[in-house]
């Protein structure tokens, strides 16, 4: 009996909450939030609330074209591959309480790994489209990957270092005990947000899909439902990355100071706090998109290796110093 309940619960987690259905709507909402803020900062009105949903439905209903020269198998399987990758990652991130649906020691590495899948999917998508622009985009995607991934990993592993655990839920429960540690992680937070912008391939780090240079990069040949899945994947990736950063650096669904009350209200409150914190991260990402110009791919690499990586090493050294002095035992 309890096994069946467990299986049903797992299906529920995977498909409804916090899995597919929640991510679908929250991802679309985040796109709306991003676009609306972007428009407001440009003194415009911006899209209506249902806009991302309308885009998604419309794309599903459009004609599906596979270019004659493209590798048909790869071309069609890659979007699903990327989509499945990001969807799995949510299960390890705490959303309404300090522990996630699934967790084990080292799930942080698994999540970080799952979040790199879309970049590779994008590379394959671009490469197998056999369009010149998409191939340039594909090569740039991978080039950029080597730039931002190292500082992003470093920044995300910094909390793990200071908390002494490699599980996201573990880090979060440690944070609840000692919230003052987060002050030490401000530098890592900034690095994580900047490299996240590069990971999501948005301005100023959108060289792989630069609209005015290579006409949209890897996705130039994609139409219809495959494009819809890719776009949804980007939105969900943004949500999950924001959630990860929230969990690692902002205390996830925990409200400081904690409000006493029944468990149910605590969960609900935690969920609301989680939403607000992720929206704050999305707001930071939108702000960056608004006020910067695109940098070239070589300048991006220079920036990552010249600034972000040294800074994240400085952060590491600081944390090691703090730990060895025994201030946080």
């Amino acid at each position: 009996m309890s096994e069946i309940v467990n299986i049903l619960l797992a299906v529920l987690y995977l498909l409804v909450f916090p899995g597919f259905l929640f991510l679908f709507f929250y991802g679309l909402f985040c796109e709306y939030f991003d676009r609306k803020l972007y428009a407001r900062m440009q003194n415009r009105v911006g899209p209506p609330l249902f806009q991302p949903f309308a885009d998604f439905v419309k794309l599903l209903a459009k004609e599906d074209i596979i270019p004659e020269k493209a590798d048909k198998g790869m071309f069609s399987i890659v979007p699903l591959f990327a989509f499945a990758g990001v969807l799995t990652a949510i299960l390890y991130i705490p959303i309404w309480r300090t522990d996630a649906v699934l967790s084990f020691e080292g799930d942080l590495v698994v999540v970080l790994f799952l979040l790199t899948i879309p970049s590779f999917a994008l590379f394959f998508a671009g490469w197998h489209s056999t369009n010149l622009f998409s191939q340039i985009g594909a090569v740039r995607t991978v080039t950029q990957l080597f730039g931002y991934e190292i500082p992003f990993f470093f920044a995300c592993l910094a909390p793990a270092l200071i908390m002494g655990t490699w599980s996201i839920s573990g880090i979060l429960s440690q944070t609840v005990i000692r919230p003052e540690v987060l002050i030490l992680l401000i530098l890592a937070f900034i690095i994580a947000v900047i490299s996240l912008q590069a990971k999501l391939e948005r301005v100023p780090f959108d060289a792989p899909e630069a609209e005015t240079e290579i006409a949209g990069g890897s996705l130039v040949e994609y139409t219809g439902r495959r494009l819809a899945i890719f776009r949804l994947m980007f939105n969900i990736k943004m949500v999950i990355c924001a959630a990860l950063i929230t969990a690692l650096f902002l205390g996830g669904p925990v409200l400081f100071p904690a409000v006493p009350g029944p468990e149910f209200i605590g969960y609900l409150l935690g969920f609301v706090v989680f939403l607000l914190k992720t929206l704050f991260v999305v707001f930071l990402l939108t702000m960056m998109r608004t006020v910067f110009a695109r940098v070239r791919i070589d300048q991006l690499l220079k920036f990552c290796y010249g600034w972000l990586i040294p800074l994240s090493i400085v952060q590491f050294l600081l944390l090691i110093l703090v730990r060895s002095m025994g201030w946080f035992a």
Partner: protein
Amino acid sequence: MPKVTIPVGPQHPALKEPINFMVSVDGETIVDADMNLAYSHRGIEKLAESKTYLQNIYLVERICGICSHTHTTCFVQGVEELMGIEVPERGLYIRTLVAELERIHSHLLWTGVAGHEIGFDTLFMYTWRDRELALDLLEMITGNRVNYGINTIGGVRRNIKAGMKDQILKHIGKLEERVQYYTDMATTESTVLLRAEGVGHLPENEARKFCAVGPTARASNIPTDVRKEDPYAAYEELDFELITSDSCDILGRLIVRMQEMVESCKMARQLIENLPSGPIRAPMSREVPAGEVVSRYEAPRGECLYYVKSNGTFYPERLKVRASTYANWPAVVYSLKGYYIADIPLIIAAIDPCMSCTSRVAILDTKDGNERKVLDMDYLRTYGIKWYKEHGRGVRRR
């Protein structure tokens, strides 16, 4: 990556108009560039021969939508010289005012487009929003936002009413403030500087060799400006400075354009404050005495040149247009080499290209795309003559 050739255009998000660049790249670096013009070759010069001078004002206005006042003024000036008409002072002032407002709107447009090419959409949105101020003024004075249709042979068609002056001064003040803000912003923002500084380098001697004109030449430290060298309209009575920059790159072109906008605002203010009274146009006949004339005009993009030949009828015998962008193309191809793929749109945009002005040659693609045949000026001319013989002029000759 091996050496590949990237086609940029004719439909490309960076280019709002049809043109095709075949850029050979080695990895991300450009080694060579080739250019196919004339996707928008229409045959205007030939068509002009079958339209009256009055109709031709509206035809040449539509050579280019951004610098439409340039083309009409340049044409009309030439015809006026042929006819020996003295344009009333007030007409010249209004003509100059519209020209300077056009320069402001064109440069703001360029700033926005350059921002768009480097992914800085916010700058794009802000500059185009503020450009609406200039367009509002133009709509108020002339009745249309683009293709103003204010010039006519012998003067201008619309007067400036007393009530308009305040609003013009008000909007000019606002524009000045905004231009100052963009200058400060664009010349200090690191992400812009990263993309603009040292990119598209065009040294002075090369710019002279390629006969660059306008802001492109002035950013390479060549002090050339028709408004100073050969003053037309009301420029002789205006006090303004010739802006040059010695940085020879895209940043220099940006700064030159920004400073020019400030100068234009200054000029517009002078024009409004010293607007003489009197008629705005001189009476004119429809017949133009035989003769030929060359007319020069400083467009927002550089020197524009018209040659008009008349044989004493209602119709011009020959009309030749050398638009400013045409003079700048060789400089673009030169300054593309050695930079990155990412710089292509910006370097092309830096001369403020206007493809519709430049189409002189048509390149015929065969169906399989392997063979190219260049149709040059002579071919097009004979082709045009043959075409008109077959199809008729389309205009009733009187």
